[in-house]
């Protein structure tokens, strides 16, 4: 048994840390630590820095511009990024579509689209969920009908994250009515400026704009925008959704959030003493740190298993379940720590009018927004179904 990284892995971590210290813009890290919304430019600035270093597309093969890392290196990189306050890069082009194109795309799609993802020329968003197809994704209704060299696309997609920053969307569309709903789905790339495509914002619980609805009305899309074979979309989608397994537990983010909590608790008082010494808060923080330490090791165990080629199917679901529980618990602790001062909407107050440290001012909205963690990417109920299916398999 050896819980430590190897000397090579530790050296890699040192190089990642040095890079982040040197290159992560402080204004961007400050926004991340204060749970503020990032602009398109913030993301693109950090993307360009990572791309120049060759570290942007962690999961891509080297011939397409990936860094050629193994699973442990990808894990170390993701964890160090989270701890430093680097933005979580939107996964749609880099972690989702890129690997899909590498596996299923035509040579032309790879040559034209992959460089545009790296350079930030294309910002992709995801068109999977529909109003009637959430957890039951296979019941999706948006359809693409063949008309010469085009598909005519009609339907509605929803929960399109950061679609307002995107110029392109990858969609699951129905191309054939089969007995088994999964059988008639295709994976289609659509330019958002195609006539008949309209995006509308959805306002979320914290009042912010992070997701959108996308409407397709007789939108004409070239058949050459199909990825893989017609009606092969479900297999591609499954590949996409299970591909990015590193960092699904968000251990790095939770560690950063916990450090943020510790700092806050040392600096604010309740009942005339530092909150860190308040018995209720001290006990809760200790329990959460225990859960987090166990999760860190669980994550490493799964990582080692994946490295050895013996990753179980339920592993990533368990990491997602416990990972989101721990993250949400920390968000709750952080919000609770502020007591009455979590109530005023920070946006209404100037910095010197706040009763709390400015980086804590968005604690309540951030807690509310982070309820999404247990809903998106396969809700925690769906993750439990996946684990149960494996545990009770006949």
């Amino acid at each position, binding site marked *: 048994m050896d819980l430590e990284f190897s000397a090579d892995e530790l050296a890699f971590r040192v190089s990642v840390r040095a890079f982040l210290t040197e290159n992560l813009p402080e204004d961007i890290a400050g926004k991340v630590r204060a749970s503020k919304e990032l602009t398109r430019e913030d993301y693109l600035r950090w993307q360009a820095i990572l791309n120049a270093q060759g570290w942007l597309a962690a999961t891509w093969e080297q011939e397409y511009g990936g860094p050629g890392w193994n699973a442990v290196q990808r894990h170390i990189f993701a964890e160090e990024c989270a701890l430093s306050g680097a933005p979580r890069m939107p996964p749609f082009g880099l972690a989702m579509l890129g690997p899909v194109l590498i596996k299923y795309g035509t040579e032309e799609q790879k040559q034209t689209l992959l460089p545009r993802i790296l350079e930030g020329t294309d910002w992709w968003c995801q068109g999977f*969920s529909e109003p*009637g197809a*959430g*957890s*039951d994704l296979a*019941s999706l209704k948006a359809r693409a009908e063949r008309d010469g060299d085009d598909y005519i696309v009609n339907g509605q997609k*929803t*929960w399109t994250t950061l679609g307002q920053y995107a110029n392109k969307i990858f969609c699951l569309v129905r191309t054939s009515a089969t007995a088994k709903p999964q059988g008639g789905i295709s994976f289609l790339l659509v330019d958002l400026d195609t006539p008949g495509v309209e995006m509308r914002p*959805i*306002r*979320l*619980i914290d*009042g912010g704009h992070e997701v959108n609805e996308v409407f397709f009305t007789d939108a004409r899309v070239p058949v050459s925008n199909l990825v893989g074979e017609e009606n092969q979309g479900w297999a591609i989608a499954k590949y996409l959704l299970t591909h990015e397994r590193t960092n699904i537990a968000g251990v790095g983010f939770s560690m950063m959030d916990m450090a943020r909590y510790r700092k806050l608790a040392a600096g*604010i*008082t*309740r*009942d*005339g003493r530092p909150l860190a010494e*308040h*018995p*209720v*808060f001290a006990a809760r923080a200790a329990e959460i740190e225990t859960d987090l330490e166990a999760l860190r090791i669980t994550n490493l165990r799964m990582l080692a298993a994946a490295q050895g080629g013996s990753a179980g199917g339920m592993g990533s679901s368990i990491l997602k379940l416990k990972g989101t529980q721990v993250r*949400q618990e920390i968000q*709750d602790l952080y*919000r*609770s720590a*502020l*007591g*009455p*001062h*979590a*109530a*005023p*909407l920070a946006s*209404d*107050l100037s910095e010197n*009018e706040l*009763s*709390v440290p400015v980086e804590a001012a968005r604690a*309540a*909205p951030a*807690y*509310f*927004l982070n*309820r*999404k963690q*247990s*809903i*998106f990417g396969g*809700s*925690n*109920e769906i993750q*439990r179904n996946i684990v149960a299916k494996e545990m009770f398999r006949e």
Partner: protein
Amino acid sequence: MDFNLSEDHEILSNTLRRFLSDNTSVEGRNESAFDAPYHSPDLWMALCELGIAGAFVSEDQGGFGGSAQDIAVIFEELGGALCVEPALGTLMAARLLAEAGREDIVEQLIAGEARAALAVYEPELACALTPMATVAAEQGGGWVLTGRKSAIYGAPGARYLVVAAKTGAGIGLFLLEDPQIIAAAMADGGGIGELVLDNTPAERLSDIAGPELEQALDLGRIALCAEAVGAMSSLVDMTVDYLNQRKQFGKALSSFQALQHRVVDMQMELEQCRSILISAVAHYGTPEAPRHVSMAKNLVGRAGRKIAEDSIQLHGGIGMTWEYPGTHFAKRLVMIDHQLGDQSDHLMRIMSGTAA
């Protein structure tokens, strides 16, 4: 043993429920809740005409109610309709003004002609009243206040502020008219204020008001617990409706046992909150009141978070949207725990001798 409401309380409850259902909506609430004055003055006036502010004060002090049960009935209905009107601040301020013999102001509050709020807490004061940093000093025959007050509910637009400050003798209460406050919306809507005092002249209401202040705060806590019970009840109903109506995998979500069980747990928490609220109301005005009020506020804080989070989770993405009314009930339930002491503060109060 009889857990039914009296006939009068039944009428009060039904009247208010009908009025709120006919005249308010979550959409309408949200239109006024996030911009100054963070509520609807017309709606507040209409509620005062119905007599809700009058019901905050006893008959011998110029009102026509004032029992903890009156307060609980009213706030449960306000919570059930997610009403964002500044009833909490008015309630606590009116009680203290009545105690101080200021029927002239109480009369204006009851009529809806003016509003008042209570300034107790400070940047480093969350629930307990000590160590209070705001001080009152005598100066030129009057009094001046220095310090900073936080978390003043309903302060934006209030003509009167009742301010707690340390005097030589203990904690005193002072009156500010047309105060200069820093106004903000709360995360879940409604107005909140901060107050910076720097040798600010104020009128003395009482030199030593610690016990009266604790009583007014405990009544405010009962009001918040009742509001939460109303909001929980509405949110559980909305969740059941949604699960009945939403279909995935070819059947209603309500047919999945794992989801049914979570709703059952929500209902169980709601029943527990109803019971602890009844206990707090029954003990109000007795020496055991602080302990029972803290038990209620602690349980409501814990259950409120659970019901809010479960309802969001059971709704899926819809429960995360601003457009869906249930979202705002969930936010209210979470934020109630931040007002007048949270579950940790009240746990400490239950455990300590002072609340025994």
